[in-house]
């Protein structure tokens, strides 16, 4: 039973943004608890198993986002760092509010946390795609922000 502590994320995701309050470190993934007894490859069908497996997917995906964010952040000058960070903070707030809305109908049910995890997983996946487009932005392309 491993609780993913802030130290682990900091270790996995070092770089500039951690020091100045990167928004990518604020997520509830820090509080999520893994259960090594659950085998996700067997496609567990209980709500509990779905929570654990969804949490693992989410953790992995969120780490990808954090690494991508930190890579971009490190590559930009001060003005672009600020613009990226502002956008990321706003995105986090939007993701939280959107998933509150999308999962409201299941608020009292056992599926609540699974639904929140999958909603956030979708949003994080979208965010990765957006930041990847910036990462791939070629010098001279004015429609994106070349790192």
């Amino acid at each position, binding site marked *: 039973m491993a609780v993913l502590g802030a130290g682990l994320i900091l270790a996995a995701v070092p770089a500039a943004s951690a020091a100045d309050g990167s928004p990518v470190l604020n997520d509830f993934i820090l509080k999520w608890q893994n259960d090594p007894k659950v085998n996700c490859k067997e496609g567990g069908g209980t709500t509990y198993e779905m929570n654990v497996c969804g949490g693992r997917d989410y953790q992995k995906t969120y780490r990808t986002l954090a690494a991508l964010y930190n890579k971009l952040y490190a590559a930009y000058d001060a003005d*672009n760092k600020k613009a990226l960070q502002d956008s990321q903070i706003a995105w986090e707030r939007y993701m939280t509010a959107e998933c509150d*809305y*999308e999962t*409201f109908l299941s608020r009292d049910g056992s599926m609540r946390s699974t639904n929140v995890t999958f909603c956030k997983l979708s949003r994080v996946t979208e965010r990765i795609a957006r930041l990847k487009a910036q990462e791939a932005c070629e010098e001279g392309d004015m429609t994106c922000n070349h790192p």
Partner: protein
Amino acid sequence: MKTLAFAALALPLLLTAAPAAAARCDNAQDQNTMNRCAAEDYARADAVLNRTYQKVMRDLDDHSRALLRASQREWIKFRDAECTYVNAANEGGSIYPLVYNGCLTDMTKTRTRQLQQGQN
């Protein structure tokens, strides 16, 4: 009867106005025209989003409505911050409005689809 009269009046207008604007924008060569066309594109996308948002809001109970309103406000802030970030390198340049409005349009269309899917 009124509706018919309006339709009879509006239809030729729509038929002539839309292609003219499209041709002007498709063949735009100068920055000013391109900027103006991008702003028009965005205004259209924003109108569709607003209609979709109002339609979704109508079918919600009070609590969900408050949550969607909150999410929409956060989304607007995110949209603006994201388009500022994407466009940051063009700050002060004549291409800025074109890229900014293009970004707003893309994000607005994505948000519209998201709201439509949530409705089903």
